[in-house]
Every structure is written in C-alpha cells, then in structure tokens.
C-alpha cells in the first residue's frame, strides 16, 4: 500500500509535467514554426486589417435603428439588438449564438419541438422575403435546408452551393454585376470535398464576401 502510494505520487507529478506541460508546449512550439498561420486561427486580412478567420463564420448584418436613431432591441430577449441582413453581402446560416467565436453552445431544438417549428418557419419566411424580389422563381421547395436551419457550431463558415446560387441574384442586382460574374466568384470560394471524397462541398461566405468587395465595392 505504502509502495503504491509513493509510486502513484511520483507518477502524478511526472505525468502532469510531461503530458500536461512538455507535450502541449512542444506541440505549440513546433506548430508556431511550421504552421504559424493555421496554428493562430487562419486569420484573413483586408488592407492589412484582420477581419476574421476563414474557418469561423461571421454575421453580415446591421442593427435596425429606431426613430431616435439608436438600435432597436428585441422585446422578448433583453439587450438583444434587432439585426437586419446587409443586402450587399452573402448571408451565412442561422446561428444560435449570434456568431460568437468564444462562447459556443448548441441550439438544442428537439425534433418534435414546437419552438423549432416556429424558428424554421420564421427563417423560411425571412429567407424568401429577402431573396424572392431578386429571384422571381424562388419557391419554398427550392430553399436549401442549410439556409434556414441553425448550424451546430453557431459559426459555420459555409453555406451550400444551392444557397449561394439563390443569393447570387440579389448580390448581382445590388452590386451591379452580371449573374455569371457572381457565379464565378462563388466557384472560386467553394471548398470541395476533402480529397474529393470526405464531407460536403461548401461556399466560404467570408472569403466570398471579401472577394466581392474587391471586385465591386459597395459605395
């Protein structure tokens, strides 16, 4: 028993030092030398200013202003600003966390939850309201699922190709580009399946919007 206690005590100390400090710090050091960009979060810059990460989605919206010129707040949820999508940008997927990159949680809506039905119904209505004026043929059965369902991480950097192609009509009209120009930008920002096999293709929304700003800046 005494021997077990001594050995255990030594093991706790040795293992904590080696597995808990030497291993992660060595990996950190090597990573910072070999892959500094990726190890620090794949940041994207515009004109030398960091605007986000290519792996982390972000919102493209503005606060809705009330008559007094100040942002309006949601009546149900205190301190939650009402946001309206910026029509000049591709819109990401709905998020349970307001695209937080440091406080993450799941939406946790169950499969038979009335709350989930309301949420999808509202998302569907606002998606159609936003896109239909520019894409006359848009009907509910053509709305891709990713456009109206919350992602898991709350910061999904991608939207589906079908979703991007619907939004392309709006972007072309607002930015005064031809549809084919926008579609070219979409394919340039599309991440295919890894090795052509794993996962699903997705359009990286932040990269696409940065490319848009370069091609046809908003006034």
């Amino acid at each position: 028993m005494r021997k077990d206690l001594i050995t255990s005590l030594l093991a706790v100390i040795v293992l904590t030092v080696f597995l808990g400090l030497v291993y992660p710090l060595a990996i950190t050091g090597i990573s910072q030398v070999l892959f500094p960009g990726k190890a620090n979060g794949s940041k994207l810059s515009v004109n030398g200013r960091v605007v986000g990460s290519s792996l982390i989605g972000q919102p493209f919206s503005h606060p809705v202003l009330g008559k007094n010129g100040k942002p309006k707040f949601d009546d149900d949820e205190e301190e939650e600003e009402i946001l309206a999508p910026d029509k000049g940008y591709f819109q990401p997927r709905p998020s349970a966390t307001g695209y937080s990159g440091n406080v993450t949680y799941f939406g946790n809506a169950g499969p038979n939850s009335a709350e989930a039905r309301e949420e999808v119904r509202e998302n569907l209505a606002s998606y159609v309201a936003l896109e239909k004026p520019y894409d006359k043929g848009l009907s509910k059965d053509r709305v891709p699922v990713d456009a109206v369902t919350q992602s898991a991480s709350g910061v999904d950097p991608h939207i589906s190709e079908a979703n991007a192609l619907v939004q392309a009509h709006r972007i072309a009209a607002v930015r005064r580009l031809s549809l084919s120009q926008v579609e070219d930008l979409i394919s340039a920002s599309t991440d295919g399946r890894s090795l052509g096999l794993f996962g699903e293709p997705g359009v990286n929304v932040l990269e696409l919007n940065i490319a848009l700003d370069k091609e046809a800046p908003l006034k």
Partner: protein
Amino acid sequence: MFQGWVQIAVFIAVVVALVKPVGIYMARLFTNQRVFLSPVVGPIERIAYKALRVRPDEGQDWKGYARSLIVFSFLFWVALYLILRTQGIHPFNPEGFKSGPWDLSFNTTSSFITNTNWQYYGGETTLSYFSQMAGLAVQNFVSAAVGIAVVVALIRGIAARSGRAIGNFWQDLVRILLYILVPISIVGALFLVSQGVIQNLSHATVVHTLTGASQTLGQGPVASQEAIKELGTNGGGFFNVNSAFPFENPSGLTNFFELLLILVIPAALTYTYGRMVGSQRQGWAIFSAMFALFVGGVVVAYIAEQHGTPAQHLAGLHTHAFDGSTGGNLTGKEQRFGIAESSLWTAVTTVTSCGAVNAALESLTGLGQAVPFANLGFSEVIFGGVGAGLYSMLLYVILAVFIGGLMVGRTPEYLGKKIGAREIKLVALGVLVTPLFTLLASGLASATRLGTRSLYGVNPQGFSETLYAYLSQANNNGSALAGYTGFIQPDAPGNAGAYGISFADLLGGAVMVGARFLPILFVLAVAGSLAGKKVSPAGLGTMRTDNPTFVFLLVGVVILVGALTFFPAILLGPIVQSLTTRLF
C-alpha cells in the same frame, strides 16, 4: 445519398485494414517483444521505471494490480480537483478565469478520471489553458491508459497457463503511454494543426468584421488536446460545442482523421486479443459481433437523418436533397460535414465511449437519437472505450458461453477454462452494475423535483435528456443531449456569478466513478480467477466460440440484456418522438 454511403464505406474499409497491423503492434508490446519504436522509446521507458521506483518485471496478482490502479486513480482525482479549484493562480490563463463552483469541479474531476469527459462546463468560457493542458488533457492520456491496462490484464488472465500474476500495472501504464498514446498523439496533433486546428497560448482575438461589428475568436492549445481526446476515446472538447467547432475540426478530412483516431485502438484490440490467446479466430469472432452492431447503427442513423424532422416539415421546409444541397435534417449540423459524416460521427462516438460530438445530438431526428441510445444501452461493448469496450465485451462473451452451455447441457468452458459459479457471479455483477447505475439515477432525477432544474426540453424530449445524461455518465461516454445541464453561467465568459446544480453534479459524478471502477474491479477479479485455472484440451462436445453461430449468440445476448434493461425507458423518449408528428 450515394456519395454519403461511399464516404461511410471508405471509412469502414480503412478501419478494417488497420485492425491487423495495429493489433499485432500492441500484442508484441504486451508480450515483451520488440517493436519498431523500441530503439527510440526503450531508454525513456527505463528512465521512467527508475523515476517511479518500480520493478517492471515483478508480476502482480489481481488484487495487487487493482490496488495500484485504484490508489493511482484516487491520487490523480485529488490532483485534478486541486488544479480546477486553484485557477486564479494558474499560469497560462490569459483570460484570467477564476475557479468554477465546487460541485461542478467534483463532476468534472470525476468525469475525466473515468474517461467519461461529460461536460457540464463550457471549456472556452470557464477553464484556463493550464487546466485544459495539465489537468484535463493529462487525464485524457492517463484514463485511456488505465482502460487499456485493464483489458490487457484480463487477456493475460484468460491466456495464462499457470500462476496468479496478470502483469504489472506500472509497466502496462508506462508502455501504453510511451509506445501507443503519446507517439500517435504527437503525429496526430501536428497533422491537425497543418489542416487548420489551432495551437497557441494567446489571448482570445478580437476582430472587426467586414460590416464593422466585432467578433471575439477563442484561442488556445487545441490540437494537442484534440488528438488525444479522440485517440483515448475521451471526447471532452476544448470548446463547448466540441468537434463541431471549426477550430477543433475544420474540414471533411480532419473529420475522417479524427474518426480513425477514435476507432483504431478499440477495433485493433480485438486482433491483439486473438493473438495473445493464441487463436486469431477468437479475435475476429468478437470483432464480427461488434462490427455487425456498429454497421447497423450507422445505417439507421444516416437514413433517419436524411429524412428531416416533424418540426421542419410542419414549418413548410422541404428536406429532399437536390443539386448543391444536402437536404435532410441539417439543424445542429455543419455544412462541411453534411448528413453522412455527421451520422457516421454520431455512431462512431457512441459505440466507442468517446462522446465527442460534431453535431447536436439533441437536434437529431427521433430515430436518429435512438441510435446513440441503443449504443449506450448495449453498455458500450460495440468497440467501446479504449480497453473498456473489449473488457466489457469479454464479460458478455463469458455470459454467452454460460448461456450456450446451459442450452446444450454441458459445463461452460471458454478457451479450455471451466467457467465456474464464482466467475459467473462476477460477470453478472460486471454486466449489471452499469445499467443499474443508469436506471437508479435517471429514476431518482425524474421522480424528484431535483432533476427538473437541469432540463431544457419538455415531455418526451425532457425525459430523453434525463435518461441520456445518466446513461452517458454511467457508460463513461460523455456525449449529451446538451439541453440537460448542471451548471448555470449567467455572465459568460468567466465564472463570475456562475453556480452549479448540486444534485446533477454530485449524482453524475458519483455515477461516473461507481460505474467505472466497480466493473474494473469485477473484471480484474475475473482475470485473477481465470489465471490460475487449468486448461483442458478441447473435445468433441466443446462449444466453439470462434464460428458464426457463436457470433450470432453473442450479438443476441448483448441485444437481449440491453433491450430487457432499457426498452421500456427508451420507448418513452426517442421512440415516441420517432412515431409521432406531434409537437411538444
């Protein structure tokens, strides 16, 4: 859907291809033979024995082995608890997080010592980098090594020709860490960084987005923890949303790689087993039983998730797939993984006791949720946690031999050793203790008002949350229908104003410890009991345990025990939800 089936098939093929080489490697390691890493690792190994003051060749009987294991785990429990209670003075704490509530620390400590990694806390909003690295990630290595050590001891007991020794705990611990877990983690972590998983010690970064808002990006030493979190079937995420967060799992390729890390050791151990007991067919028989149950779960999950949920259909959403859209139930899933990789992940992490998630389990369809419920209800024997899966399955093997023996009217024998009353008593206890913890705890939480404070969902979903919480903690899995909580954090991030729900924290912690270490004691006792038995040669009447009939019997016994124990409870949650379009 065709492309999704291809992804799943390729993954399964790669796992099957790895079983033999990895299995041989581990078998050589556990039988004192040279492996290709010996020239590099051998000297370090010898220094480790000196530092720990142990004589590695000194065999222990089952009581000695168990005593070392328990004392070691207990001391580490104390150490981790102290680390979590002293966050205010930690180095590597750029956000300046204070310690969380004590009852939460009790739960988290028990969770990581037992290889569960149940998470009531949110990693990025409550824990210093020091707690993550020197506290939790150390346990990711150590608790995994303990699980593997136990199964190796059991295998030695089954294979032993004489004597009472079942190995030396310290030697097994050191070897498992130095030759298996650490090298693979180093390579795995660096690969993950090369694909975009972050690895730094910086303060969270504030960026100004294209539309002028500000966004804070969490940072930290993620890759080093991610690799062992998967490899050790631990599952505790650096971030609260775990492997759904792009900094933990940025692409389809990392998703595939992480899945491989999770499944490779539990699958390969069946081959190690066959080799160590001297009959490869015995290993493949167990592999086949696990494989059949696993593939069944994957198929059901994928088909279910491709269908969408009643809530989505009633909202007017069309969930069919078309060109450029995955279709299906994408709520709580990431676009880059889609339906197939999310369903596969859910099956892999719940058959093994990994419990990492890349999609919200709570948002799965009713039938989709039934898959993790079933996988856990079968007591994590389908590959299972590293080591723990195989030792639990071997208890079922002995049980199947016993039942088979009763059917043909002969004394049950396994690999030439007679299974007596003592072994069967220990096996029955080992098999029943985990379900017992689950049912008692969920019953207590559902029947008293104390459990309702933890709920997020209502009616069947609320019951599912409760049952899954204790099912997951008792099976040391750690995945969750994440609405269920034991921690309230009003002013995130940081622990200011946060408090734990003591009932859920303490009950969960006790369940994890009890359902981990009691079965380990029963398993080691079985190992000790079998070690000293004489081997009698197989005769004409000996029931074979390496043919399809036995695999069928084994699968039947696993399903029978799981269904008899849990079917009534699972009816009330996921099955109700998959049979109705009613909303709650």
